[in-house]
């Protein structure tokens, strides 16, 4: 494990990934200080104006909104939209900062739960073999028959909008890769003598899987998990972009980008005047995904010496 950590810090590209990730963790932790919430629900992006049109960076909070907050007795801790506002006056800066928390929540929860389900099904399948294996693997095939985004979209359409529903959809159609991966590793590991020895001593099956097989086979799954945190966040954002993800006004990067969709071309004669609506959320998503991909890539190199030194 020490070697892995050393390697992660000595490789230039994973170091970039770690630094980026560290910055995102800081942003997520200090979100209430960087962008103080104006309402009870901090994930609700405040509006800086009632105007439909996006407003450029530096736009001051409009007078009628200020009146509303004064009326409610809320102290306005910052009064400018640093990165401009999206469609409907939503503050882009606030959405980006609190969206970081959303991204971590989606990535970590979905990958952890999907990973557990996959490891459970895959290890049972490989260890017991025979009909159990055949049946479980065909079920896996059925879940794999859908394009991931299409499957997630169907489930969120049926379940309704909301971040929890998005995560359920991502988990339901996100465990199959881990199941196949752990199955492959356990199939070869279970022929090793230490497993035979444990069996001969009469150790229970569950204990053999948990104590002997999983510790020796779990590392590739963890690498896979790291690499798919980025793609889970992208898919969740894509669902918001398609209008079936998080509810309107929820601090979520995908929604920030989808707000930009109708404005990206700009008014006639002012091509690109709304550049900020796509640029800032775009940069946040790309850097977040890039961070995880760079770390995952290096982990894979460490895992597979054959690939060392290659892309």
């Amino acid at each position, binding site marked *: 494990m020490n070697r892995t950590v050393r390697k992660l810090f000595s490789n230039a590209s994973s170091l970039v990934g770690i630094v980026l990730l560290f910055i995102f963790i800081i942003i997520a932790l200090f979100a209430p200080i960087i962008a103080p919430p104006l309402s009870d629900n901090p994930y609700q992006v405040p509006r800086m104006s009632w105007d439909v049109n996006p407003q450029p960076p530096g736009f001051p909070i409009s007078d009628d909104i200020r009146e509303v907050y004064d009326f409610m007795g809320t102290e306005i801790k910052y009064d400018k939209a640093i990165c401009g506002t999206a469609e409907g006056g939503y503050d882009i800066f606030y959405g980006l900062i609190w969206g970081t928390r959303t991204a971590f929540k989606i990535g970590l929860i979905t990958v952890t739960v999907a990973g557990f389900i996959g490891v459970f099904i895959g290890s049972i399948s490989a260890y017991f073999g025979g009909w159990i294996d055949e049946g479980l693997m*065909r*079920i896996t*095939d*059925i*879940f794999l*028959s*859908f*394009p*991931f*985004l*299409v*499957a997630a*979209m*169907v*489930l*969120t*359409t*049926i*379940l309704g909008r909301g971040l929890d529903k998005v995560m359920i959809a991502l988990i339901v159609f996100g465990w199959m890769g881990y199941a196949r991966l752990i199955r492959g590793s356990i199939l070869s590991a279970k022929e090793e003598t230490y497993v035979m020895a444990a069996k001969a001593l009469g150790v229970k099956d569950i204990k053999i899987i948990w104590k002997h097989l999983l510790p020796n086979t779990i590392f590739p799954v963890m690498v896979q998990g790291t690499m798919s945190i*980025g793609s889970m966040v*992208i898919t969740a*954002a*894509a669902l918001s*972009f*398609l*209008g*079936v993800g998080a509810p309107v006004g929820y601090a979520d990067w*995908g929604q920030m*980008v*989808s707000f*930009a*969709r109708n404005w*990206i*071309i*700009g008014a006639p004669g002012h*091509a*690109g005047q709304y*550049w900020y609506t*796509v640029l800032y*959320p*775009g940069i946040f*998503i*790309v850097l977040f*995904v*890039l961070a995880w*991909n*760079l770390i995952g*890539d290096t982990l894979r190199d460490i895992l597979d010496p*054959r*690939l060392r030194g*290659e*892309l």
Partner: protein
Amino acid sequence: MLAYIIRRFLLLPIIILGVTFLIFCVFSLLSPMERLATYIHDPSTLKNPQSVERLINKYHLDDPFPLGYINWLKRIVRLDLGWSQTANQSVWDAICQRFPATLELVLYSIIPVILVGIWLGVISAVHHNDMLDQTIRVTAIIGWSLPTFVFGLLVLFIFYGILDWLPPGRLSSWAQDIVYASSNFHSYTHLITIDALLNGNISIFLDALRHLIAPIITLSYISWAFLLRITRSSMLDTLRKDYVRTARSKGVDEHTVIHLHAKRNALIPVITVAGMMIIGMLGGVMITETIFTYPGLGFWAATAAQQLDSGSVISFALLFATLMIVGNLIVDISYALIDPRVRLE
């Protein structure tokens, strides 16, 4: 080998049946009333409680789960997929009408995936660790981290918003008048670029192509960025093999070594991945078509999802799952046929 192919074909109906079962399970999460909405043509019928009761009975929507599944399956087999509120036509008609547009987009997207992905991958491997190799690598890894919807919007922003070269949609309005309204233009295949050539109308061909370029780039860039990685590492592996060194020491010129000896073997694993990448593009169709308001299946499905038109969304998923299963089958079998080392039992 033959046993493997037979086994795959025997499994095909089981997997497809499993897919329909899974979709029906998801569909059953809706109440009978909500499911009814996918059967009726006129939304105002839903306001009258008596007719709702009657229709729920007529379509057996409150039957127990197994019976409901069998009834639903019977209708699917007859291609009776219900009514799409979004398209305001039957779901099957909506699919038939939009399928050619999506097919055209996906078919053209295969070209850059194969050409650029493999070509750049080989170049990158041959110039291992050069400036060129590093540039290609960095571009690929950034491309891989860039979500389709951000990339697509950037393409739209630059090539339509600023430069006004590549407009969204499928055809300009003048071309639409000719293709859909003129009696001189015959639609043989409903793929507009091909129909235009068959009709000898170059200006329509060019117009259709101009509308296709941006969606093609958006749909395919992730696939070729990924394929490039695979080609590169496979090619690097092969270039280190003994037989390549033998060829070089015999004095075979470098061009022949790379293109005749190494590339052919290096491309074997690439072919499977290329097949998977092409199938994988099906998932990106929704985003790409939505960004460029390209009137295909994906745009329709995304609109249907926003309007909670569950019948359309479910039929779309069923269609795409079937396409993917058949596509995967073709890829797996062709892989087994191409690589003599694969003797799958």
